[in-house]
Structure formats: C-alpha cells, structure tokens
C-alpha cells in the first residue's frame, strides 16, 4: 500500500520532491491529529456524496482516520423512487446499509450532527459527543423552505400531504394515495423555483404517475404540473414522450402562465398561484429547497441558500478545510443550477474533494478535477433518456464542455433506431443505479 501511495503522490505533483505520506503527516499543528497522529476526516451525511467520499478516502489512503456521521441506519435512494411510486420499481431496491463502509474501515456513527465549530475544527453531535477534525466533508443534501408555500408544513408532509422529495416513508405514502385514485381524478404536482434537486425529477414523476393511470384502467385521470419555472430539463424529450404515451393526460402550466404555487389549502386540496387555483384529488407539493440545515447553520451558504465552493476542489469559500459536496453546493456556471443537483454529480464531486484533501494533507497541488454527470429518466416502460454533462478545469476555472454532453436525441433518422435508443437508456438507467449504489455504499 505505501508504495501505491508514494506513486500517487509522486504523480500528483510535477516537482520531484518526495513528500511525506498522508497517514504519518499530522497537518495543522498536529494537536487535533488523533492519538496515532493520523489525519482525521469527518464526513457528515451518508447519502450519495458523503458515502462516496468516506469510501474513496479509505480506498485511496487506508491510513486515514475517517468517521461518517449519518442520522439514518438505512439509506433510501431518491433515484428510482418515482418508479416505486408508480409500482414499476421495488422499495427494497432503493435501500442501502452502511456495512460495506464499515468493512472498509470507516467509523460509522449513527447520530445527528447539530453544530460545527469551524474555528475550533469540531463537530457536535446530538448524543453529546464532539468530534475533532482536520478536514470536514459536508454532504447533508437539501432541506426545505416550507415558508415558500404558505399553508404547507412539515407536519402535513409527514401525514396527509407527502412531498416525497426525500425518499423514505413519504415515497410509500404518496404511492398509496396514487393507488387510491379513481378514474377521472386529477393529480397535481407543484414544482418550486430552481434550483431544486434532480432537475428532471418532477417531470419524471408526472410521467410515472401517468404510466400508473394508463396501466391500471384509469386513463381518464389527469396530471397537472404547476411550475414556478418557465422551462425544464429535457423538455423536448418529456413532451415527446407525453404526446406519444399519454396523449392529453399531462398538462404543464409554466410560471409565466401563473404556475408558481405560493399557497396551499389542505382542507380543499387546492394549491394556488397569484392567478390560478389548482384543485386536485391528490396534491403533491414539492417545497422550495435550500442547502442542508447543518451547512446553513455553519454559515457556508450564500444569500440564496446554497454553499459556494472553490470549483476545482469543493473546498468551502467561507471556511478553510471544510469541503461541501452534493446538493448543498452551487457549483459550475450553468444558469440557475450551476451543476445539476444529482446523485451522479454528488458522486463525482465527492471523488474530486477526496483527491484535493489527500493532496492538501501531503502538501502538494490538487489533481486536475474532472466532473461527469448523467441523469437518466424513465418516462414509460422501454422509454428512457438522459442528459450528460462534462465539466473540466481550464485556466483555473470550471468550464461546461459544450462539445460533449447534452440530451439524448429527440428525433433520429429512423423510427427503429429511436425505439432502440429509448429502450437502451431505460435499461442503462437501472444498471447505472445498481453501480452507483455500489460505488457509494459497497
């Protein structure tokens, strides 16, 4: 192992100076370096970003002291949760435990991080324990701004009106409501202003709900999307799918057409914008998001509620030695979203942060980062498509490569090829999911 590490370090830097190895080099004065003088890294949040970071820290340098703090014993994936709501996927397949990370030597603590002392470099846990760190990785995902839709509350979300935008019991609750619907009824989805996690998520959900109706003799049901935004991810691909598979069933109301929901009345099941009332039999409010609470409380977020980071390393621009990855960050130069808030992006950012942390511990320059993202969506059985993003560093900046990436073709020269393309991506979506779950948790 030490040979490998030495090789790694040698190539990290163009200089020929051999630097000391990670595990032996206690950074920043060494006081917080732990009993054996190892670098101590605490990761908060064991979702796609945090679990990947913890795993790759250990994989790239087994000598590091890595602790993962996660509040739930079982992770439930948002990717493919829309397919569970429609009955096309199984809830069990969304779940992962933390045994894999423990076997790799990650110290997993099921606890809640309640405060970070950035100056003193420690994290306070709900149980009362305090963890000292040399480096902190935060990947707490998102939390909701319930105030963004007057009348919608966390209590409603946990009982009668699940948002199901954090997978878990609410996913099953929404599935049950869908299954209880009668033919001819209306399912309303309200989409918050961007950025929100999984840019294509609400529209994939609309497709999956329509698929459920279509395959369960409820073809007169309607899906109404009340959107705060004027466009959406993979719009051409979704609209084509809707026309083809669910003609007349899905209606999209843009923000400019009065789609932005600002209040909700749970008694009458009515979501309202300043211009329209959307009454549904099931109303699925997706509240506006901001960075995970712990990141907000630590003062890492900008005035819009998202954490700004050094684009090339994922280190917070507010506090040294804190790295923020995943949905909590704003990262990259695409309008509204920066880089999309996806599981794949969280995974790729975590790997970049790990490379940068290990380089920093060893006093060498961070390796050149490379970010790749792919969001697959399944609109109907055998009908999947994707969007790909490639980001690279150029002159110290993060650039979205417009020659690569982009969405799946909307039209193709030949009908048989288009069908094949959609079939392949509906299958690759599942293969991607299994591999990324293993990449983070196994």
């Amino acid at each position, binding site marked *: 192992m030490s040979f490998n590490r030495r090789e*790694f370090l040698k190539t990290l830097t163009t200089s020929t100076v051999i630097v000391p190895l990670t595990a032996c080099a206690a950074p920043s004065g060494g006081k917080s370096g732990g009993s054996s003088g190892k670098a101590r890294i605490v990761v908060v949040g064991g979702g796609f970003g945090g679990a990947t970071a913890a795993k790759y820290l250990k994989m790239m340098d087994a000598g590091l002291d890595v602790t993962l703090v996660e509040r739930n014993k079982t992770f439930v994936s948002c990717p493919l949760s829309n397919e569970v709501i429609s009955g096309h996927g199984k809830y069990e397949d969304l779940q992962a435990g933390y045994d894999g990370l423990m076997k790799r030597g990650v110290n997993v603590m099921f606890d809640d991080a309640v405060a970070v002392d950035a100056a003193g470099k420690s994290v306070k846990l709900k149980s009362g324990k305090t963890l000292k760190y040399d480096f902190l990785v935060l990947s707490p995902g998102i939390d909701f701004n319930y105030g963004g839709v007057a009348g919608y509350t966390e209590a409603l979300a946990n009982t009668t009106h699940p948002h199901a935008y954090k997978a878990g019991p609410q996913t099953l609750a929404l599935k049950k409501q869908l299954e209880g619907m009668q033919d001819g009824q209306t399912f309303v989805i309200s989409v918050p202003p961007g950025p929100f996690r999984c840019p294509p998520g609400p529209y994939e959900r609309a497709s999956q709900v329509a698929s459920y109706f279509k395959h369960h003799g409820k073809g007169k049901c309607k899906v109404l999307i009340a959107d705060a935004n004027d466009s959406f991810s993979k719009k051409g691909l979704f609209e084509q799918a809707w026309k083809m598979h669910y003609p007349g069933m899905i209606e999209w109301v843009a923000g400019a057409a009065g789609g932005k929901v600002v209040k909700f009345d749970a008694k009458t099941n009515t979501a309202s914008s300043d211009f329209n009332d959307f009454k549904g039999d099931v109303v699925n409010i997706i509240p506006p998001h901001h960075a995970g609470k712990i990141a907000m409380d630590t003062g890492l977020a900008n005035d819009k509620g998202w954490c700004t980071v050094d684009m090339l390393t994922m280190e917070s621009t507010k506090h040294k030695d804190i790295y923020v990855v995943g949905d909590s960050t704003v990262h990259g130069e695409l309008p509204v979203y920066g880089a999309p808030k996806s599981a794949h992006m969280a*995974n790729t950012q975590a790997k970049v942060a790990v490379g940068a942390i290990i380089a920093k511990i060893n006093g060498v320059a961070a390796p050149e980062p490379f970010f790749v993202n792919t969001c697959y969506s399944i609109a109907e059985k055998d009908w999947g498509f994707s969007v790909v993003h490639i980001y690279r560093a150029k002159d110290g900046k993060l650039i979205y490569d417009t020659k*690569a990436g982009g969405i799946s073709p909307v039209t193709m020269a030949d009908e048989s090829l288009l069908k094949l393309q959609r*079939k392949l991506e509906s299958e690759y979506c599942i*293969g991607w999911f299994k591999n990324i779950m293993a990449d983070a948790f196994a």
Partner: protein
Amino acid sequence: MRSSLMIAMAALGFASHPAYAGPTEDLARTCNACHGVNGVSVGPSMPSIGGLPEAYLKNLMLQWKSDERYSATMGRHFKGYTEAELSALATYFAKMPWVPVVQKADDKTLAQGKAASDRCETCHGATGGTPDDAETPKLNGQWADYMHLEMMKYRTEAAKMPHKKMRGNAKKLEEADVEAVAKYYAAQPK
C-alpha cells in the same frame, strides 16, 4: 499467485490498487459510477470493462468520440475527452484482470445458446473467453442483459456499428436465439 478468493475480492473492489497511474486514474475513477470499481459492473445492463483487450477498448472509445459508432449514452461522454486520454484509459482498463460474473441459466436455455453459438466460436472461442484477436472482446461472464442489448444494436440496420463481420453474424441469428446465446456466454467462467 492469484487465488480465486482474490479474484472474488477484486470483483467487490477490495483488491489492492495498481500503482497510481496519474491523471488517468483520476479520470478512471469517474467510470466506476457506471461500470463498477476496477471495471467490474454489478448492474446487469451495464458492461464490465476491466480486462477487455486493449485494442478492442481503444477501437470503441475512439469510434465513439469521432461519431463513427452508435451508442445510446457513451458517445456524449467521450467527446469531452482527448484522444490521448481515451487511449490511456483503454490501456489502464485493459491491464486489470477480467473478472467474469458467472450467471445462472436453466439447462434448456444453455443448450439452446450453445447450439446457436456455433457460428460465433471461430472468433470468440468456444466459451467466449478466448477471442482469436485483440480486437475481439471477451464474452464469458459478461452480463447477459448487456450482451442482449448489444446484439440488438448489431441487429438494427440503422445503428452505426462499423464491424461488418460481427454485424453479419448477429443478423444471422434467429430472434429466439439471441437471448439464449447471451445467457450461454454469461454462464461461462472461462
């Protein structure tokens, strides 16, 4: 001294890493999200890529970059890499051990697949594990679902697949044999 235990561990990503290969390793780490650690996929519709022949990998990756070959997703990725990076990645993955994921199938399907694989044997070897040249992939223990989808590409006239002979052979298969032959190769340990 590579024991079967070590191979099993490699499949799970526990094997010790080859020496750090510089920036190529940083790039390769991003492939894991779809192709598995060390290029051993755990998702049946996604291919394992670790240990495939270098020339074969290079062919595909460069053909995708230059749009000479159809893909559903991969081509949109590879336009963001330089040719030198793609060649280095091909070399990197080719050096890894091929870890067949042996999949079960019923006897009838296996017999049907074996019979249908007659015309494939000259190039892929009797069980898919001994390709006759460096531009031919291993099929033993590759995912059946993935190979089935791959055969659909070769059999769709409008999909640009430059290898004429492989395409010709794929098209000659009876529709009913496609899945069986994929399952036959997927079941082979060697």
